[in-house]
């Protein structure tokens, strides 16, 4: 337990010491909130769908958690380049504990980022339908964060350089995010888009966050929780197995 804790703490310390990372990771969602929220707000309203900012905020929170969690995999590659990875690979601690300590640390920072976006959203006019339910949203963010940090540790264990890692971000994670319904409603979209959204695990987290913060859901809470649990188990298994074969 001490080992998991100290590896978790390492990630937390590195996060709070890197002001540029905090600001950078807040900047992008803020840009989305302002540019899209204000930019498309009137179109959305004209279409008779109500307040776009309300709709958008859970999506942007999911975005923040998703990409902050992916960043954890990049940290593994940085550790490899700086040589620190070797140190963690010869210690008498099981690969599982090493992976989970770091992934929990990465997940914690991702949830902090997501929560910061929540508070920023409040400042620009977002209102959750029920304050208690925002705590449930926190649980959903944690589940997403741990699933994605596990996934990105798996990726970081076999992708050797940053370019390879960025490619996975560009060609897998970005498309999944854009097609998840985070930015626009999935009603009245072409069938192919709807099908992709329905097999896309990110859609269910976005939907669950909307359920917790707005009280509306597309797939239903049970489907959301089921999909999120499956995603968490599958990605943690993937991360654990890949990390077991990690090479320096």
């Amino acid at each position, binding site marked *: 337990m*001490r*080992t998991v804790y*100290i*590896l978790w703490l*390492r990630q937390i*310390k*590195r996060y709070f*010491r*890197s002001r540029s990372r905090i600001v950078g990771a807040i900047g992008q969602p803020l840009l989305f909130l302002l540019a899209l929220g204000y930019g498309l707000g009137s179109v959305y309203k004209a279409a008779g769908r109500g307040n776009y900012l309300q709709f958008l905020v859970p999506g942007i929170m999911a975005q923040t958690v998703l990409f902050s969690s992916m960043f954890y995999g990049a940290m593994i590659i940085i*550790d490899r380049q*700086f*040589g*620190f990875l*070797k*140190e*963690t*690979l*010869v*210690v*008498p*601690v*099981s690969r599982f504990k090493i992976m989970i300590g770091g992934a929990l640390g990465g997940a914690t920072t991702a949830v902090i980022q997501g929560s910061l976006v929540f508070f920023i959203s409040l400042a620009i006019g977002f209102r959750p339908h029920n304050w208690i339910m925002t705590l449930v949203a926190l649980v959903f963010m944690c589940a997403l964060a741990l699933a994605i940090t596990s996934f990105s540790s798996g990726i970081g264990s076999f992708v050797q350089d940053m370019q390879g890692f960025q490619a996975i971000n560009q060609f897998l994670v970005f498309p999944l995010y854009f097609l998840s319904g985070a930015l626009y409603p999935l009603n009245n979209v072409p069938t192919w888009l709807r099908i992709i959204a329905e097999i896309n695990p990110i859609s269910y987290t976005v939907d669950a966050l909307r359920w917790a913060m707005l009280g509306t859901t597309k797939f239903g809470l049970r489907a959301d929780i089921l999909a999120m649990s499956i995603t968490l188990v599958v990605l943690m298994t993937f991360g654990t197995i890949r990390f077991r074969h990690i*090479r*320096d």
Partner: protein
Amino acid sequence: MIEVNNLTKRFGDFTAVDNVSFSVNRGELFALLGPNGAGKSTTIKMLTTLLKPTSGKLKLNGLDVVKDPDAVRRSFGIVFQDPSLDTDLTAYENMELHGIMYGVAKKELAPRIEELLRLVELWERRNSFVKTFSGGMKRRLEIARGLLHHPKVLFLDEPTLGLDTQTRHLLWSYVDSLTKEKAMTVLFTTHYLEEAESNAHRIAIIDHGKLIAIGSASELKKSTGTDSLEQAYLELTGSEIREEEVDAHEAWRSIRRARNMR
């Protein structure tokens, strides 16, 4: 304590370690010498579970290194040739992280860290970020970290590279006391032959991945009919410069050429 049998490592069709066998006894201070690119670090990486051998058997503390890496990791400590610190943490935090990962008991940890940081004269700088350290200070911290827990087998891959004379003396006397008092087994590499001559109980020399000689310094001198380890070493390995160094020269020359053209 360490048994290496017919160890071979190939990278593609290049053979970095070629059918090497030797063994190191408990409490022995054993030097692995050889020119650049001889295969010393590759041998250590295989012994420390970082690389899988192409063929051959490796045993450490009676355990099979390939089959039982988790148990093997409990038996050794290592100071790597290349940097391996977290430069975004402080010196103290690097030590603490290492101690906890190696299961050093809580109440022993703080005094042990203080003792070692004082030994390498970094105690005053314990709360500085490692990225603010000079090359030699980083190396000293890595040494201190490697000595923090007391493993059965300690690997030191060019530990004194870039260290000042004072710290080198400190290191060797500390390591010597560990082999005597704790019967710790130490395998180290170095390019300073006088370090091997005055500290190692036995020396193995490898070249182009092959083991070419093994024995105490006086045995090596006797067998080559020379009167210093340096001469014996040159006798055994020849005096031509190795690939890597040639490459470095070549690179340097092309830089100068480029400069002259401007």
